[in-house]
């Protein structure tokens, strides 16, 4: 009796295992298949662009000279966003996880999470109507006093709708992502290691540098990369905030354009080769994101031995 019972239990266990491993495998395959299908769609739709005569491409000088300025614009906007959002986001997360009194930390964490939930079109409207006009004066000042640095070359935009404004709006959008992800990582730092640092006579800040930040290193990089993903792909906010134009070095003049905004603004009226062109631009954006993620993985794996996982 007991043998049949245990045999039956083992039997159902095996079936359950099979079902679950099948479901897990299916989910894994589905993700790869979807990714592959998207990539295939982009490549096939983009192909006509690469075989077209250079004169037929927008700008008349071929695809590379069409895509290059907007790739640069995309990277500049994302870089501005990350340069601003990373230190602030990490600082906010550290404040919540290690400095704020517990009640306040909970409230603040909640607010940060809410910030992440605001739709991008609202950020865009805020950036275009409020932030841009507020930044006109500082831009003018920068043009007058730091104009010799190419990125602050004048004349400053009269509307404030520049790539720097777009970058700042993106920073505000990326900030809650970085802050809430890194906060979670900081909270997971083993008490054991924090106490080890404190027992050696570390101040709170020294303890954070000794135990918390090294532990969270991989997590911070992942958070920044997720933020970068949003900054690269963000469409609506940039489309509303930036008054676009040809590529220029100055960040405080109208000009520059990002891939996502370029696609969104032109897609509704595009047909024929123009449509292929925009999809090709999408393919380029896809490749950039892929590359960024691979680099991030590589950075994280380089320090595997010291990650604490062993």
């Amino acid at each position, binding site marked *: 009796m007991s043998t049949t019972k245990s045999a039956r239990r083992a039997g159902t266990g095996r079936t359950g295992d099979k079902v679950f491993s099948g479901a897990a495998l299916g989910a894994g395959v589905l993700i790869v298949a979807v990714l592959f299908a998207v990539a295939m769609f982009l490549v096939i739709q983009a192909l006509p662009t690469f075989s077209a005569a250079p004169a037929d491409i927008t700008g008349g000088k071929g695809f590379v000279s069409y895509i290059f300025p907007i790739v640069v614009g995309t990277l500049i906007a994302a870089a501005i966003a990350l340069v601003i959002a990373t230190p602030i986001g990490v600082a906010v997360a550290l404040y919540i996880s290690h400095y704020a009194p517990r009640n306040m930390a909970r409230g603040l964490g909640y607010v940060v999470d809410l910030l992440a939930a605001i739709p991008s079109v609202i950020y865009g409207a805020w950036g275009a109507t409020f932030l841009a006009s507020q930044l006109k004066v500082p831009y003018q000042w920068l043009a007058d006093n730091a104009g010799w640095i190419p990125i602050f070359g004048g004349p400053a935009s009269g509307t404030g709708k520049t790539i720097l404004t777009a970058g700042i709006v993106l920073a505000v959008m990326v900030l809650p992502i970085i802050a809430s992800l890194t906060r979670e990582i900081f909270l997971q730092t083993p008490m054991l290691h*924090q106490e080890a640092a*404190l*027992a050696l*006579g570390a101040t709170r800040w020294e303890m954070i540098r000794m135990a918390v930040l090294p*532990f969270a290193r991989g997590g911070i990089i992942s958070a920044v990369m997720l933020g970068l993903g949003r900054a690269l792909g963000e469409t609506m906010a940039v489309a509303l905030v930036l008054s676009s134009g040809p590529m220029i070095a100055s960040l405080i003049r109208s000009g520059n354009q990002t891939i996502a905004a370029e696609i969104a603004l032109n897609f509704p009226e595009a047909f024929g080769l123009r449509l292929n062109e925009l999809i090709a631009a999408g393919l380029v954006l896809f490749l950039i994101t892929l590359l960024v993620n691979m680099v991030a993985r590589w950075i994280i794996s380089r320090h595997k031995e010291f*990650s604490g996982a062993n």
Partner: protein
Amino acid sequence: MSKRIDVSDLNVYYGDFLAVEDVNITLDAKSVTAFIGPSGCGKSTFLRTLNRMHEVIPGARVEGKVLLDGDNLYADGVDPVTVRSQIGMVFQRPNPFPTMSIRDNVLAGVKLNSRRMAKSDADALVEKSLQGANLWNEVKDRLEKPGSGLSGGQQQRLCIARAIAVAPDVILMDEPCSALDPISTLAIEDLINELKDEYTVVIVTHNMQQAARVSDKTAFFNIAGTGKPGKLIEFAETATIFNNPGQKSTEDYVSGRFG
């Protein structure tokens, strides 16, 4: 360097809850003092008050005095950070910094105090501290490898090396062998015997044989019941505690009748 600790009228609270009541004890310099007692009797809590590590726990506070060679650790204006650099601590579970190499682990505390250090001085200190922790011969060829790659016993000795590298006056050990196998435990006990030549050592242990083997004096803590505060019941020479205790509950505990 080695200093003695005088504790007078010490109460420890977690919020409103009195966890340890009215401890008076003197821990001699260059000696090993063991704290024994059943779980939850407050011996670890009390140990943490000796270098103000209890302040890490939210709500924990202390009344009373702890004098380190006459200086009150709880006097106004005393920075817990300074206290902890004078009174080192080794924890129950080995906790080398996983992101640091063996060498950097040893130097972790030193780098806090003196920012710049010549490489030769640092090398000498690493060797001296690791030798002091009886670990040098096992790790001298892999100082740049992560500390987390060592065995549990080696990691614990690495933590001891890290603690003695900052040249503290006192070393507190909170059940340092409870996560280790017997061979590693023996290695740590030998080490404790050597450490008392230079340091004041205080060790919390659940293992009464260990207390009998390593300590000069033993303090027995007990608790009257759940929700009651822990108390210091008896403090005497280790031989006295184990062979001729003055209190009935001490005798019951050391003879294995409870706890």
